[in-house]
């Protein structure tokens, strides 16, 4: 076998916390050939990022990491203690959140120049311009500060800095997870092109199987600090050998059976007519929502899809009466919410409840679960008995009953917290649940679990969902109807399957084309 560019054998990372030690990575073998692109997939906590940070020598010293194993670069041994010499010279890294890796007080051109200078003292200022052009920015962008650039542009700057290292391996840790799909597509194309032109190797770490299947030749699947399966991307994704890989693929691929649009006997439970909202005034006025019409029937799910800034979260807040619209009406059960006096609104809106994106902020940290649920039961006028609360928790599959009630939300995992949020919504007796990106931070397996749960509850209680997501495939598999939002308007709306398969509006077409999908 030819010598690989990078050959990592039996790499282990152990953290010490007090007297306990936690194995974050337990004996991982990974090979990357010259110019090869390799993906690592796995859920949060699988050790994929820890692996990347270990070989970059970037693990936090406060966690007292102990790294073991052999690392060979071009067939030559590299001591663990010498890894910091390799970083920046042979390896460069791009992170998920470029804003926190860029100096906020320094122009991006100067930041790139700094890196250029470290690696090539003779290189002139011109090199910065060249690098910016390589990542498809303009030379004039050198004068910008990080906050003046969009997320995609910042990630390009990070890539330019990685290129300035003239590294032979680019490690990208969830490089596009924080970006919109259309921007993600551009960044992925850029990385693929640069890799081809410069002959760089790529180690792409992602939870998104679609991204990995588009970008990589070989893939490693990690679970609890170990590689459980590896091989060429096609083989692993088509004929997975491990149950876990199979489950990941099932959760990650688009295998939606189109849901029949239910027939409605009654009128819609929620109606929006001509809803508009402007933030600011005068010259700085910004029209966030413009002429939104939407109907939601009992037992129906409408997905609002769109990219960041399209106004979908503002629309959720308007629906929930957290923000008043400037124009149009929001009608719930025949009552025009935005025209009700405050006291009546408080009563009327209780037929509706939100589930938020970030479940860590969704609960008062001083209230235990008993407190959270009894507050919600009060609204429905149900006596807050432990039995009633345990029943609610069981409905969202939080089983162990009694011990839960005295715990705090922050002691639960993200998936458990999101189910608690659903339990709270059920406790209020709401008929409409407005969920704003409830699964965007969740791992695939948790996503599948929560989606199944929401479906089950809808079938049992004929709940109606407004489901906001940027993930068009998730909308496809979960919603009856999809409304596509773009610049504050609903540009297209209809049965989910029709929207995905036969998009009419240009923007919808672009969105569908850009969304990575795991093709089997």
């Amino acid at each position: 076998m030819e010598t690989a560019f990078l050959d990592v054998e039996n790499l282990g990372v152990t953290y010490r916390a007090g007297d306990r030690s936690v194995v974050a990575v337990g004996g991982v073998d990974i090979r990357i050939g010259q110019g090869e692109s390799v993906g690592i997939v796995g859920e949060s906590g699988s050790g994929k990022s820890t692996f990347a940070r270990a070989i970059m020598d970037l693990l936090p010293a406060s966690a007292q990491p102990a790294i073991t194993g052999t690392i060979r670069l071009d067939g030559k041994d590299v001591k663990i203690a010498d890894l910091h010499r390799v970083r920046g010279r042979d390896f460069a890294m791009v992170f998920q959140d470029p804003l926190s890796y860029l100096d906020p007080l320094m122009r991006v051109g100067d930041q790139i120049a700094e890196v250029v200078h470290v690696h090539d003292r003779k290189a002139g200022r011109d090199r910065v311009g060249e690098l910016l052009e390589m990542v498809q920015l303009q030379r004039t962008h050198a004068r910008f500060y990080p906050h003046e650039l969009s997320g995609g542009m910042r990630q390009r700057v990070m890539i330019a800095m990685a290129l300035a290292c003239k590294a032979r391996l680019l490690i990208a840790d969830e490089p596009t997870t924080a970006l919109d799909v259309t921007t993600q597509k551009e960044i992925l194309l850029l990385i693929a092109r640069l890799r081809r032109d410069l002959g760089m190797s790529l180690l792409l770490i992602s939870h998104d199987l679609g991204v990995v299947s588009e970008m990589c030749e070989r893939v490693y699947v990690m679970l609890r600090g170990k590689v459980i399966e590896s091989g060429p991307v096609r083989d692993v994704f088509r004929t997975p050998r491990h149950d876990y890989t199979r489950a990941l693929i099932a959760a990650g691929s688009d295998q939606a059976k189109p849901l029949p649009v239910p027939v409605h006997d009654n009128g819609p439970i929620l109606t929006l007519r001509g809803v508009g909202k402007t933030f600011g005034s005068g010259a700085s006025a910004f029209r966030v929502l413009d002429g939104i019409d939407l109907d939601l029937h009992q037992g129906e799910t409408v997905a609002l899809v769109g990219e960041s800034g399209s106004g979908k979260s503002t629309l959720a807040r308007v629906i929930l009466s957290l923000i008043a619209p400037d124009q149009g009406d929001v009608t719930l059960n025949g009552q025009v919410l935005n025209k009700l006096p405050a006291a009546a609104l408080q009563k009327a809106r209780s037929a509706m409840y939100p589930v938020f994106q970030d479940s860590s902020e969704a609960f008062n940290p001083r209230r235990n679960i008993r407190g959270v649920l009894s507050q919600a039961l009060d609204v429905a006028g149900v006596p807050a008995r432990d039995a009633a609360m345990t029943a609610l928790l069981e409905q969202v599959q939080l089983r162990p009953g009694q011990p839960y009630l005295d715990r705090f939300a922050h002691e639960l995992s993200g998936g458990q917290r999101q189910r608690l949020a659903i339990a709270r919504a059920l406790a209020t007796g709401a008929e409409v649940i407005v969920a704003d990106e409830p699964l965007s931070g969740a791992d695939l397996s948790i996503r599948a679990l929560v989606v199944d749960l929401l479906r089950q509850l809808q079938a049992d209680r004929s709940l109606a969902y407004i489901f906001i997501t940027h993930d068009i495939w998730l909308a496809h598999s979960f919603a009856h109807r999809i409304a596509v939002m773009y610049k504050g308007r609903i540009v297209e709306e209809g049965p989910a399957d029709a929207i995905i398969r036969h998009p009419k509006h240009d923007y919808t077409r672009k969105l569908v084309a850009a969304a990575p999908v795991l093709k089997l």
Partner: protein
Amino acid sequence: MQSSIPASGPDTRVRDRRLVRLLSSSVAILSFGVILVLLGCAVIGPIVYSGQELALTSASLVPPSGQSWLGTDELGRDVFVQMLFGSRTSLLVGVAAAVSATLVGIAIGAIAGFGSNRVDTVVMRVTEIFQVMPSFVLAAVIVALWGPGTMRIILIIAILSWPQTARLMRGEVLRIKSLDYVNAARCLGMTETQILWREVVPNALAPVLTVGTLIVGQAILLEAGLAFFGLTSPDVASWGKMLNSGQRFFYQGWWLSVFPGLAIFVTVLAFNLAGDKVAEIFNPRSED
């Protein structure tokens, strides 16, 4: 997927065990212990030595000895006995000023942070006026108008101290009011007042209470400063006054300034460390 919570015994006692653990750390025992001893001295000391506050012993400026443990001052009064009497003033002024400044600061900060932009602007400008007010000028004016007195000293210090608490409180409230759980409460139909006092304020308290314990120290020092300028009642003993009168005799009797200084130092330190613990107890996440 089965969801199981790591089993960890009967959970009703989770919080009690947490409290016990927080309170059984050496820092907690030491700081709360020192505060208890100080309070004990302030309460019992003057009773035991009743009437001896100004009693003169045979000699002035005697260094610490078996007879007078901490020496005597220039008039031959026992420093130890004076410090016991002084502890009453210092602790009373420190604690009372800190408590009232914290209460006022919490209320004003909460209103500024939770109210509309206009309310916020007005309240914060008023707060700034109090912050830039020169403390000694204010104290001198009040004493000149109404005469000296411990209650007035407490009032002055509270007036000077609440703005820092209010600013901190406002910042916390601004941060917390944008969190989703506040919207979740709003969607439950809670009124804005209920949301402010039940959902927002309790979660903003931890840093504010820590600062409150710092104010205890500041107040003791400020009282000392006011005593130095003769703005406190001449017939009430306090550590600050002893420190300031003692420094005139620093070369003849170091004990006159060192012991009251040490007492102030230990008290301030104990309150600050205790304050950190209080903040930890108030933060339900401190276990993580």
